[in-house]
């Protein structure tokens, strides 16, 4: 469960600039697979289409060509088989942390006692059991994103899609949450596809890194670091980390990547 297939995916946007209509190709025949329980990072310069690809996989946008399938079923809109973690958490500001987690569950049809218990269980998983009654503005950025992750995981999706989930956080909080995500993955074995522009993050978290350029696939780079990855500090100092990071850096700086 949880295999994502991205097949020949294309996406064109029409923009009106100074009264003239332009077509921008955000994705150009992108294809790759995320295997069951695998963690894959999508990396590339801004504007390369990585977020667009993720949004199409979520069903928030439609493809102009090609398709995305999850466990063989073509994505035709949002579904409970996929959980989305947004870049800025996007919690509903009038709800408490607990109610935010409950929101997704209620949409899945859960009511009553199980609803409360499940929400609490996932808040506990992200370490926020004691802050369940706080509203988003009473939570730090890192805590907000933890709630965002709990909300997405609570509906028990087969795949987790994350759009630069830690991009808006400070370095220390980001590292905490990266560790947390590795722990959660070790426990739940969810398939995770995440977008990032952080080289270190892609190496630390992913099994494979998909490098994109101008809406196309540039290269897929496997990360040879073993799991479980408990000691991130030691990993950062390892030879494999440095080599993989360099490979990704080279792919990102390959010919034709001058537009940022």
């Amino acid at each position: 469960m949880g295999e994502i297939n991205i097949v020949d995916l294309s996406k064109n946007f029409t923009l009106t600039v100074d009264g003239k209509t332009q077509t921008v190709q955000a994705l150009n025949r992108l294809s790759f697979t995320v295997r069951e329980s695998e963690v894959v990072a999508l990396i590339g310069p801004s504007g390369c289409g990585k977020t667009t690809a993720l949004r199409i996989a979520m069903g928030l946008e439609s493809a102009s060509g090609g398709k995305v399938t999850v466990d063989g079923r073509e994505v035709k809109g949002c579904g409970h088989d996929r959980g989305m973690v947004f870049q800025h958490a996007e919690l509903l500001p009038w709800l408490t942390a607990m109610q935010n987690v409950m929101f997704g569950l209620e949409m899945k049809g859960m009511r009553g006692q199980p609803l409360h218990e499940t929400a609490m269980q996932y808040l506990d998983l992200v370490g926020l059991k004691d802050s369940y009654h706080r509203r988003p503005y009473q939570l730090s950025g890192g805590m907000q994103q933890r709630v965002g992750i709990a909300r997405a995981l609570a509906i028990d999706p087969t795949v987790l899609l994350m759009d630069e989930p830690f991009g808006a956080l400070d370095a220390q909080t980001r590292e905490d949450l990266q560790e947390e995500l590795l722990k959660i993955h070790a426990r739940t074995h969810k398939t995770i596809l995440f977008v990032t522009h952080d080289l270190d993050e892609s190496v630390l978290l992913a099994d494979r890194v998909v490098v994109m350029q101008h809406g196309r696939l540039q290269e897929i780079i496997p990360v040879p670091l073993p799991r479980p990855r408990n000691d991130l500090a030691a990993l950062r100092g390892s030879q494999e980390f440095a080599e993989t990071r360099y490979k990704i850096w080279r792919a990102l700086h390959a010919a034709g990547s001058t537009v940022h």
Partner: protein
Amino acid sequence: MADITERLDEKADTPAADAKRRLPRSAITTLSVALVLLIWEGFGPYINPVFGSYPSAIAMAFWEISRTGKLWAALYESLQPFVVGYFLAIAIGVPLGLIVGRFRTLDAALGIYITAGYAMPLVALVPLLILWLGLGFKVKVAVIFLMSLFPICINTWVGVTAVPKSLIEVGKSFVASNTVILLRIVLPATLPYIMAGIRLAVGRAVVAMVVAEFFTTISGLGAIIINSANNFDTATMFVPIVLLMLMAIGLNSLILLFERRVAPWQAEISGRDKE
């Protein structure tokens, strides 16, 4: 060492001391009102009492018509169509603004009437409304309703269009239906705008109430205004006017209080800090 501690203490005290030095809002408002009343009281008596009045004369007139119960009977009479018309405007304006803001087709089909309706010269239409609804309670409700409907509706509409797209996508990503997105995401996100519209409508509803009392059956506070104006009793004429303005201020603060209760996050995320 002692020097350092002392300086730290001083620094820690600064924000509190700063707050102490600043006058509280209510004190500034009281001062401002007192000043205006004082100036008015000072100049007022030199003006012919037909052409103007002043606070102490108005207070005397107030005492006169409030003692006989005339003022309160009139207020009670005025408030009935006010309450009905105003709440009807909220009950219809908010849902209308929500759906017009949310659905393209309704925006295109109805938006134009709402924009036009806001600018409608209602006073000119009162005679027509009288033909339709008579001279009594109903026509007064209609005038108040029509005057307060549009600011509420337009504000709600604008609020809906200002809801961040990302919050709606949260709903979509959890497969929420359109109704759920409207009621559980768009409505709460729009609340601050809705409350602003409801506050704006207070003023319009008060004006509409008096207009209705002038142009239909002369009644309520409007009747006191007209009758005392006809008798050149300017001081008495000012009594209902001042009372209505006070009522509007009171309603406004009540709604503000209510807003802080239903949308407490708004005050937190928007800067209420003023220079």
